[in-house]
Structure formats: C-alpha cells, structure tokens
C-alpha cells in the first residue's frame, strides 16, 4: 500500500448557509501528481486551504505527512511549498529581499537552486515585486514555493491568466518536483489539458462534493466517446441509460459514456443508429459531460 502524503476524510465546511465542502475525501499518494479540477466555486481553494492548515476542519479530519496542519503547523508547513492563485507577494520588497525573506522560514532552502531558477526566469535581484508583470510575479512566487525543495508542493490555479511560456515554466516545475525522488504535488487547475498531461491522479469537485477520484489512466480508459448516425433524426433530447452526455442534432450525435459501453451501444442500435466512431475522450470532454450532464 502506498503511503499517503495528504489524507482528508469526511471534511465538510459551511460558509454561512452555503455548503463549501460536503463530506469530502481525498488521498494524495506519495510521489504522485494529483490534479484537482472543478468549476469556479466548487470548493477547490477551500479544500487546499484545509491542507495548509489555514482552515480548521469542523467535521472530518485532515492529515498531512500524518500530522494535523492546524495543531502541528511547524511539522507540516516547513515541508510544503505553496503558490496561491492571487500570488500574494509583498509588493514593497525587491526580488533579492523576497528570496532572503522566504529563505528565513525554511531551513532546507537551496541557494544554488533558487539562483538557478532566478536566472532561468530572468528576474534581477533589485527588481521591485510591485513592478513585476503578471508572468514575472508567478515566476517569483514559484521560486518562493519550490526553492526549499518541499516534500509537498501545493499550487492553487498556478496557470490562470498566464501566457504559454510561463505556463510551461510552471508545468516543468511540477515535473521537476516529482522527478526528484518521492516528492508530491497537489494542484488545482481549469486547464484540463495540462491536468491530463502531468497528473497521475485526478480529483473532480462539484458543488463541494467529490465527484470522482481516480488514476488518470482509469478515468481516460473507462470513458468512451461514440459517434452515431441515425437513419431518422432521433427525438431531441436524446436520452440513454448509462450515458453521461448526448450531444448533436439531426442524424449525427456524439454520446459520452462511462464503462457501460455495451449497454449504450445496444440502445443506440435499437434506435436504428449506426456507430461510426469509437474513441477515447479527453479529460476536458469528460469534465464537461460530468458537469453539464
């Protein structure tokens, strides 16, 4: 059995009357990249804040490295690297100051690695954080998050609003982190093609509930996209048992299903539909089908 770096069990959270998290379980195995996906407001940031000990679980339990991040923050936070979506860096500091400031919190800070990243990202020591572009800000935040070579890297929407070059830097930081023996990454993202590329596991949150947690391979191989052509246009909307989403108009339709391909195909044949294509859908398609039905 693989050791879990993060173990969340039965966590629920209310903001006023709004249910932000509803009995959520999540386990992040050591040495893996776990991609957390969900619509805006699904509870991704709230869940990540529980991992960081910024929120205390009212019900359920959160364990990081087997410890409670709220009662034992020293043991947990020193081993975590975190980059938030808003990348809240101290504006008044220069890059050099930001680096030595962050360094002071982490005994394991690696000066050579930090310098290597800073040079790669073309940030100069005397640049003020306030004057950085959005992409440079993300890069500075990334240095602060990974230069102490954390056991666990937590990234909240690291790519949002960034150009492809900076997104590439962030993805390669994720890859480098796991390629370093035994390190683990938990990140949330809207960019499902990125999640599909770099994650071993995917966790899908919807309206505060964990809809799906599975290995990426299983998710991708258990879903099927069928393209079907009918002799006569079927009644719209097309409804099939076991199908996640039916989309189309006129004679040609696309049906996305999970696992129950045989039964869905039998129903289509009964409706005089000829299956003209079978393919594996992308994570993006699966996500849209699961969210919109």
């Amino acid at each position, binding site marked *: 059995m693989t050791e879990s770096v993060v173990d969340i069990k039965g966590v629920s959270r209310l903001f006023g009357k709004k249910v932000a998290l509803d009995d959520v379980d999540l386990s992040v195995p050591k040495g*893996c*990249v776990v991609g957390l996906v969900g619509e805006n407001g699904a509870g991704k940031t709230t869940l990540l804040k529980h991992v960081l000990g910024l929120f205390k679980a009212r019900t359920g339990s959160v364990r990081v490295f087997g410890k409670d991040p709220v009662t034992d923050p020293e043991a947990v936070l020193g081993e975590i690297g975190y980059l938030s979506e808003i990348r809240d860096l101290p504006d008044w500091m220069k890059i050099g100051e930001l680096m030595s400031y962050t360094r002071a919190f982490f005994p394991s800070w690696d000066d050579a690695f930090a310098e290597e990243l800073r040079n790669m990202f073309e940030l100069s020591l005397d640049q003020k954080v306030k004057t950085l572009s959005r992409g440079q800000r993300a890069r500075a935040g990334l240095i602060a998050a990974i230069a102490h070579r954390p056991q666990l890297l937590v990234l909240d929407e690291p790519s949002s609003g960034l150009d492809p070059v900076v997104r*590439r830097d962030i*993805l*390669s930081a994720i*890859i*480098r982190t*796991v*390629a370093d023996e035994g390190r683990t990454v938990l990140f949330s993202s809207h960019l499902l*093609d990125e999640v*599909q*590329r*770099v*994650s*071993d596991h995917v966790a899908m949150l919807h309206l505060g509930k964990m809809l799906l947690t599975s290995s*990426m*391979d299983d998710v*991708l*191989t258990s879903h099927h*996209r069928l393209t079907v052509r009918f002799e006569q246009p079927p009644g719209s909307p097309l409804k099939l048992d076991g199908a996640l989403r039916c989309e189309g108009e006129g004679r040609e339709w696309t049906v996305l299903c999970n696992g129950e391909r045989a039964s869905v195909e039998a129903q289509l044949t009964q409706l005089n539909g000829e299956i*003209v294509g079978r*393919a*594996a*859908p*992308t*994570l*993006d398609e699966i996500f849209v089908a699961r969210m919109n039905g």
Partner: protein
Amino acid sequence: MQIHITEADGTPYYQQVVNQVKFLVASGRLEEGEQLPPVRKLAEQLLVNPNTIARAYRELESEGVVASKRGAGVFVSDSGSPLSRKEKTRILHERIDALLTESSQLGVGVDSLLKLIDQRSKKFDSTWGDKS
C-alpha cells in the same frame, strides 16, 4: 529524439511515446546502441508526468526495443533490427486500417481504393522519385 504527443489523439500518452520510439527505431532515426534521454529530461521536454515516460520505457524494454543498463541509462537494443521489420508492418497496418475505415465510410470499395493507391504512387514517384 523528437517526439510529439497530443491529447486529441485518444491514445494514452505512454502508448504514444512507445509507438513513436518504435517508429524512430524502425525508420533508423534511432540506431542500435543509441541512448534515449533520461526519464526526467524527456518528461520535462514533453511536459508530461515522469511516471508516464517511465512506463513507456518499461514497456519498450519488455518488448525488447530498448535495454536499460544499470546506472548508465536506456539504450536501443542490439536486437533492434528483426523487430524493426515487424514494427514497420505494424505501423503500416495501423495506417491501412484507418484508410480502409475511412474509404468504407465514403462508400469507396477496396478495388477502387487499390487503383487510387496505384495512381498516387506513380504521381508520388514522379514528384519525389529523384530523392530516393
């Protein structure tokens, strides 16, 4: 080593890597004894999970396309060549199957298809023939 992966394809990433390495070996662009990039380097180049690359390499090793030498890396097997003929056939079979599916959907029979291939091949020769 030039490998390109795509999500649109529907083929799992590790399989895309396996197929393309085999293609490179079969076409002679990767030669016997040539070293493959380390897992981590290829993962960073392709921006995919390192475990995906590791899995592709394991698969290639179990099929005898590559062999890993402890501590030294992963190399194209010396026995690469007999496999490469089988591999050429496999790659072509894949393309032929796709072509057959498409032509049947377009209502073009196998006989007409063969004639078309013959015609195209003559045209192809007259355009590219000098170079081969």
